[in-house]
């Protein structure tokens, strides 16, 4: 399968901007995991008075578009305030790169989530926000699943594929529909969902079922509450 990357993606892949780690970073955050083959770490210097991101670096473990999206994310962040970044949308990154193949859309989400996670960590350290206690509910689960992308369409699964969410004492039941998506992607989507929910506190078990196929998976967790 030949990958249709834009010139801008290839440029940032070949000559990524702001690579590395800041020595005395005010905030550091990592999104993704080695098993998924997708990981970005951002380190930031933030002015406590103006909330401006004075400097930023990234490290990446991932494909060409992972590197390119992280690179453009640093370029877009430098000199902006954390408030501006908090309202940043993955689409801005995609547009800035002149588009991404649908199968690579998750890279833009990963980059934006990485930036927001670093900022959130900084806000907690500064005492600007409190570490909120996320309750396990269908609503918070749907929110957490906003970062899972259908690789065929490039759209989040919560809008199109996720049909039912139930929670019972740390056990999460999800029912999905393929809605025209190739069955071959089901395993990837299930893995991504499991990974996303595994990051949430209080999750003991995740069960995912596709309405159309025999594919279903149960994963056990023992997350603290």
């Amino acid at each position, binding site marked *: 399968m030949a990958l249709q990357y834009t010139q801008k993606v290839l440029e940032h*892949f070949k000559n990524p901007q702001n690579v590395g780690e800041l020595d005395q970073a005010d905030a550091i955050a990592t999104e993704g995991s080695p098993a*998924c083959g997708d990981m970005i770490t951002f380190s930031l210097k933030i002015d406590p008075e103006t909330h401006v991101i004075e400097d930023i670096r990234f490290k990446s473990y991932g494909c060409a578009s992972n590197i390119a999206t992280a690179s453009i994310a640093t370029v877009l962040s430098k000199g902006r305030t954390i408030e501006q970044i908090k309202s940043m949308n993955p689409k801005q990154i995609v547009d800035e790169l002149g588009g991404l193949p649908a199968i690579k859309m998750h890279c833009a989400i990963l980059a934006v989530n990485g930036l927001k996670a670093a900022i959130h960590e900084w806000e907690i350290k500064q005492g600007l926000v409190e570490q909120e206690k996320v309750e396990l509910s269908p609503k918070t689960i749907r929110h957490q699943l906003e970062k899972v992308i259908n690789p065929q369409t490039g759209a989040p699964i919560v809008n199109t594929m996720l049909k039912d969410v139930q929670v019972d004492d740390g056990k999460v039941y999800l029912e999905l529909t393929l809605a025209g998506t190739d069955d071959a992607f089901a395993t990837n989507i299930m893995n991504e969902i499991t990974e996303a929910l595994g990051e949430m506190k209080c999750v003991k078990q995740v069960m995912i079922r596709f309405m159309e196929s025999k594919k279903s998976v149960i994963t056990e967790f023992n997350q603290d509450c």
Partner: protein
Amino acid sequence: MPEIAYLDNNDTTKMLPEVLEAMLPYFGEKYGNPASLHDLGLEAENAVNASRETIAKALGVRADELIFTSCATEANNLALIGAARARSKRGNHIMTSSIEHSSVINVMKYLGDNGFQLEILPVDHEGFVNPDDVKTRIRPDTILVSIVHANHEIGTIQDIKAIGDICRQRDVWFHTDAAQSFCKEPLDVGNLPVDLVSLNAHKLHGPKGVGALYIRKGVRIKRLMEGAFQEKNLRPGTENVPGVIGFAKAVELVSRDVQEQRSKMRALRDRLIDGLLAIPKSKLNGPTADRRLCNNVDVLFRYIEGEAILMHLNIRGIAVSSGSACSSKTLEPSPVLTAIGLKHEESHGSIRFSLSRFTTEREIDYTIEQTGQVVETLRAMSAFVPERDET
């Protein structure tokens, strides 16, 4: 710097100029249909039959044991579904390995979903099927076993003689996919205990769009398509005459010096393996020496991702492929690498380099040097910091 180092020959190969030359008249003035009764048809029929003779000779089999298909995938479909349906009254147990090409494993899974009992044999850390596993798992109702000759990704060459002997003793049909090994490794089908062998042209410097299936005399499979009576009534449809001519020409040219080219490719393969393993934190996937396909190298580079390596090598004029999930259509890591026990993050960093008879020492040395630089660049920026360093 060489203009390009094409090291993706397990994917496809460059067609020989002589092959194109042999094919051209059959796109032009020799446009007959082998099924026609007039002279133009006879000319095409004779050419197709002469081609069949050439390929049969290279395999050490009779020409009437060979039928032409559109590719190895079609040959695998015809062999497996055709054999299973032909023997379904006798039993419904079928076996294959966990490192088959998708055109075998997905066909076997299809059969498994449609009334047959599929058993998938495990492989060891180098990708070998243990013939004893075949022996102990064959049952009275086993009708078909399919084990690839040489694996497309990690080059494991199976002991198809030992596996075939076991199958024969129990009257189980044995199929092997020889798309990667034909005209590279010795394949004396006439003296091997195999019943069905799939082949193709474009991996041995022939054209795309043509393959063949060897069907041992006495083995009667069912056809999959309905139509006329071409190819012994097993594969209806007018033959791809230029393709068949090109297939035979390629076999004629490359089968002349298989041994010599094999030694040459092995030497370059081992030079590449040695050079790549000198890069820190790298590991060879699959076996070594004569147990590995002569043109295949597959190496994992820890802490970095395959698609990024592939794209950087591509910029430097080096064409390779990757076992990484990011390079696959379904975003899942290579099933072959998973079957030999690699963790996901190990599959993600695996790159296949596959040589041809035209690969030069200069290309190999250039590839080693460039890969070293690419790996170093990507590692320097990698976010994947291991908790415990692995060797």
